[in-house]
């Protein structure tokens, strides 16, 4: 890669630049700040779409009464049952159980507080769910999750 070809496609890095290694006119390596690259931006969006789709599925399952709100927070924090179990310090099967509405409703305040601490929200907000998928990043127009209520895409 030549130093004048280092891509400057700003998107996912926000105000930051990353360092790219490139060669100058004499063929010597120089460090060049890059605002990002189209190819990596694109696959990053793809990864977020997958996370968004998972959150959406979680919200639907909670809506239909087949899952507890924990499933939403788990998806929102990009966690699997195994990872959440490690963070909250419970066995996998207990976490799995808490993902069902009835065992969840009977959770002791102490356990609710532990879950809430992992998700970094106050315990009373565990049951507050957003009406639609919200991601910490903005997906570009035309992405399957853009304007999120386009159910036909998922």
């Amino acid at each position, binding site marked *: 890669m030549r130093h004048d070809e280092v891509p400057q496609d700003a998107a996912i890095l*926000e105000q930051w630049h990353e360092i790219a*290694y490139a060669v100058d006119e004499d063929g010597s390596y120089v460090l060049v700040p890059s605002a990002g690259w189209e190819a*990596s931006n*694109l696959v*990053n969006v793809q*990864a977020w779409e*997958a996370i968004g789709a998972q959150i959406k599925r979680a919200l639907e399952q909670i809506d239909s009464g087949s899952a507890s709100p924990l499933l939403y927070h788990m998806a929102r*924090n*990009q966690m699997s049952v195994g990872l959440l179990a490690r963070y909250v310090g419970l066995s996998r099967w207990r976490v799995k159980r808490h993902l069902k509405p009835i065992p969840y409703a009977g959770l002791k305040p102490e356990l609710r507080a532990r879950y809430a601490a992992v998700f970094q929200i106050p315990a009373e907000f565990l049951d507050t769910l957003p009406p639609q998928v919200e991601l910490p990043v903005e997906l570009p127009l035309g992405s399957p999750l853009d304007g999120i209520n386009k159910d036909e895409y998922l």
Partner: protein
Amino acid sequence: MTIEFIHRQSAHCESGVTANLLKHNGYSISEAMAFGIGGGLFFGYFPFIKINHLPLITFRGAPGSIFKKCASRLGVPVTSRQFRDPQRGMDALDASIAAGIPVGLQSGVYWLPYFPAALRFHFNAHNLVVYGREGDEYLISDPIIEKPVRCSSAVLERARYAKGALAPKGRMYSIGQVPGEIPLAAAIRAGIKEVATRMVKVPIPLIGVRGMRMLARHLQYWPDKFGDKQSIIHLGHLIRMQEEIGTGGGGFRFIYAAFLQEAAAVLELPRLEILAQEMTQIGDMWRRIALLGARRCKGRNSTDNTFPALAELMRECSLREEKLFRELLHVVKK
């Protein structure tokens, strides 16, 4: 308490931390040099190890090995510790800063608030340097980020005790007294030898150039095996592993070429300069795979970005890398 510490942004976190800590201790070394001596370059494809249902593909060695190997090859003493108890881990960090020793920390990116939101995934082998504390805030030199940043103690503790794959368990490390005589040339040779051996001599079909060929063989049939949607997700995953922040571009191939270029001057081996150019061209080819692949992910299909075409490019990369690393082995032996 603040330690005078020079923040230098780098492409890769671990080689950046290593170079910056060495420089702080009076031994000036470039990031590329730390990367090369530490034997940072690698290729591994492990289809049976899944991360989020996707195969493990890596262009780098095991986390922590660049720091450890670079320091040991240069004859620089290091200390590295883990703490089961987070409180003890944070106390040890404070003690080190109070003693004027900047500390490298392994941490989970997901919890670091200053990281760009789009890059906050559960990746636990990120490296940064803590060089001071003001009240409840730690002063951090994160080599991926342009400027020094700050982080509250609660947040930093969370990042140090991130859970899951590659959990840091509070790992912190620092560099001791740099000796007067540094065996730079021998360290460079050892670093090259290790990487080249791994790339072409290990009789396991999953790693090195043979791993690339296996990936190419599998990739070719992804659409048949997984269907359109899943094969695109697999392809996107490959590109992310190769190009997402921290590689310097082309799956670390450019930073390695920069290292070879520096090595040519130190070892007075002009042949290495030529091989650095070849490595650059190979890096460009990896970038081409990423660009064409990304276009396919976006649905911009053409004849040059079909899965077999991408596989063919990857095979070409593997053949050129095989030739290059065999020659490297020969060159550094002399």
